[in-house]
């Protein structure tokens, strides 16, 4: 029973709700869904207080539960190539599957060929303009690509874990990482020039 003493559910909301909410919003870009997940996390945690080992902090433990819930949302979202759309339900990029390369030899198509943006060596920390363009472009990705790309970059999650959770083959995984980057880059260039 000593373990239970470390957990104090009556303090959870005041201590961790804002933190968990921020964590979920950053990964889902949906405030309502983030709020629901935080609530679900607290309730799920209550049901398994006996699984809490004192070796991690209360906050780390709750975050781990929330993280699994975020991955569940990613999994549910990944129905085909539906785009995330904006908060207003606006459709994202109408043609995420567009072809950037010539079919016969794989050369860049002239209209998609990368152009220098002048920010290649910029320090992105503190570059607000770049962050906001990137955020807008991320939202235009199909839901599955967004999930894979976000998990890989924000969580630095292992490829194997992402493939297992989202039921992807490693081949699929690299194709998605590649296509997501091509689309993101094209979208940033369009916004920048």
């Amino acid at each position, binding site marked *: 029973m000593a373990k239970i003493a470390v957990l104090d*559910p*009556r303090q*959870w*909301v*005041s201590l961790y*709700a*804002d*933190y968990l*909410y*921020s*964590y979920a*919003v*950053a990964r889902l870009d949906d405030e309502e869904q983030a*709020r629901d997940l*935080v*609530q679900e996390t*607290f*309730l799920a945690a*209550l049901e398994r207080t006996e699984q809490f080992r004192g070796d991690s902090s209360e906050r780390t433990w709750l975050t781990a539960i929330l993280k699994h819930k975020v991955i569940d949302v990613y999994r549910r979202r990944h129905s085909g190539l539906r785009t995330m759309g904006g908060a207003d339900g606006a459709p994202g990029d109408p043609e995420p599957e567009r072809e*950037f*390369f010539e079919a016969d*030899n*794989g*050369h*860049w198509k002239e209209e998609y*060929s*990368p*152009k*220098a*943006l002048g*920010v*290649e*060596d*910029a*320090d*992105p*920390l*503190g*570059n607000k303009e*770049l*962050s906001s363009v*990137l*955020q807008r472009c991320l939202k235009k990705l199909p839901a599955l690509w967004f999930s894979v*790309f976000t998990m*890989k*970059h*924000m969580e630095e999650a292992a*490829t194997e874990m992402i493939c297992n959770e989202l039921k992807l083959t490693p081949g699929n995984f*690299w*194709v998605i*990482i*590649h296509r997501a*980057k*091509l689309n*993101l*880059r094209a979208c*940033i260039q369009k916004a920048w020039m």
Partner: protein
Amino acid sequence: MGVIKKIQYNCREATYLIEKRQHVRLSIKERIHLLIHLSGCSVCRLFQQQSRMINRAMKALFKESAGEERRLDEDVKREMQDKINERLR
């Protein structure tokens, strides 16, 4: 088209390998292909620079969002705590 020419033209393969290389170690064959391609293709070298820039920006985005704490509405919080307390009874 000869093998080398094919590699030199194939920006699709090169950009794929550029992405993969940022996460895992490439096979020897993949490394040779990429080396041959990049030595002659300035557009893909630019792509590589921009791709790395985007990855750095993704990291920065995450750091910023972690630093900037969002706050839940007090009413919502009260509701959450009520639900927890209910189950504690």
